[in-house]
């Protein structure tokens, strides 16, 4: 293809417009640091649902990708103690045999044996952690999010014992010195409290999807209202075969694994 001066200018103009479009159409989301007024106005359009859920489309999830984990742990000031005993996890990966214990057998192929799936708090509809918490620091919101009020956590770790998914981590030490770069928009935790995934409720309040969902370039994570028949997540789990982790325990987990 030969291009003359006229064609070149057309393409250059179109590219400039395309690059500028997101900043013009949606200024609040493209800029890193929002002013106080912009921060406030972003609260006027929260994402709401009857019951939030997440579908993990494993086929799209590439093997060594850790984008969701990196994004989540950076945004939520999750410390790295460089020590598996003290490890704090909001979202991480586990092999198939650990995600679905009892579903594995010795004749499974290499693909299944080597499979690693992202795991996080299941935001159970019947959460055992909420039932055991003596201070109601862990509670269930109306939209299904199982959330922690760190102000009330006394560090008794009953929730850690109750959670069948190991989705909760205890801060045995002051986490602040172990956070690589503190995100000033989200608080850190302190020594002696338990923490876990909050389904990015602070982002939902600003009309943003969870950080892991936004970070996934393969679109392997689909987030939405499972009670809404039109929602993408609902249609996906209606159409495709999926499993929930240890659903036989009756916790009604809300993370759906499409395998």
């Amino acid at each position: 293809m030969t291009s003359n001066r006229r064609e070149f200018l057309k393409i250059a103009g179109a590219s400039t417009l395309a690059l500028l479009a997101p900043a013009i159409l949606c200024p609040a989301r493209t800029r890193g640091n929002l002013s106080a007024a912009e921060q406030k106005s972003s609260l006027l359009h929260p994402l709401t649902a009857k019951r939030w859920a997440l579908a993990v489309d494993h086929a799209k999830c590439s093997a060594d990708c850790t984008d969701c984990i990196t994004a989540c742990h950076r945004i939520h000031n999750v410390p790295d103690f460089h020590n598996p005993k003290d490890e704090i996890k909001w979202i991480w990966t586990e092999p198939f045999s650990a995600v679905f214990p009892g579903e594995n057998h010795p004749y499974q192929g290499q693909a299944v044996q080597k499979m690693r799936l992202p795991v996080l708090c299941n935001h159970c509809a019947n959460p055992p952690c909420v039932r055991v918490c003596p201070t109601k620091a862990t509670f269930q919101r109306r939209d299904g999010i199982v959330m922690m009020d760190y102000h009330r956590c006394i560090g008794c770790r009953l929730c850690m014992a109750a959670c069948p998914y190991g989705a909760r981590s205890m801060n045995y030490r002051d986490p602040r010195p172990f956070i690589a770069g503190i995100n000033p928009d989200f608080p850190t935790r302190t020594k002696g409290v338990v923490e876990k995934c909050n389904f990015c409720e602070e982002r939902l309040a600003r009309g943003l999807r969870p950080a892991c969902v936004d970070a996934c370039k393969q679109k392997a994570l689909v987030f939405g209202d499972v009670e809404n028949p039109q929602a993408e997540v609902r249609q996906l789990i209606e159409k495709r075969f999926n499993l929930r982790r240890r659903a036989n325990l009756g916790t009604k987990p809300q993370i759906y694994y499409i395998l």
Partner: protein
Amino acid sequence: MKLYNGGIIITGIVIFALLITFPFWWGKGEKNPAPVLSVDTPAINQLPDKRCLEDASFMRKNHMKLLNTWREGAVREGQRLYTATDGRSFEVSLTGTCLHCHSNKDQFCDRCHNYMGAKPNCFSCHIIPGEVNK
């Protein structure tokens, strides 16, 4: 009536009286000046009307109760906007709203807290802008 061991008893009574009245005479006449709080920050200087969320007297007396209400509301009820009595609305955020204006925590919050011997543990989790290791 005879007082046995009078010397020891009277000395004891005198020491006891001195100790029990200790708070009343120790440091008498000394002045403990009230802390001088600075509201000279870039964000406050830019305000056309230098008014906190509510009246200064209300804030001085009740900021801790207000923050407790904010905490419960934001975390547990999802109420992230606060409407002040004069109709202005603010984001419910210690770091984002309070410390945005009062960016001089050591010359504002800390001075009074130290004077009163108050030890709030807000900042073991909530971030002080500017003290962040980016």
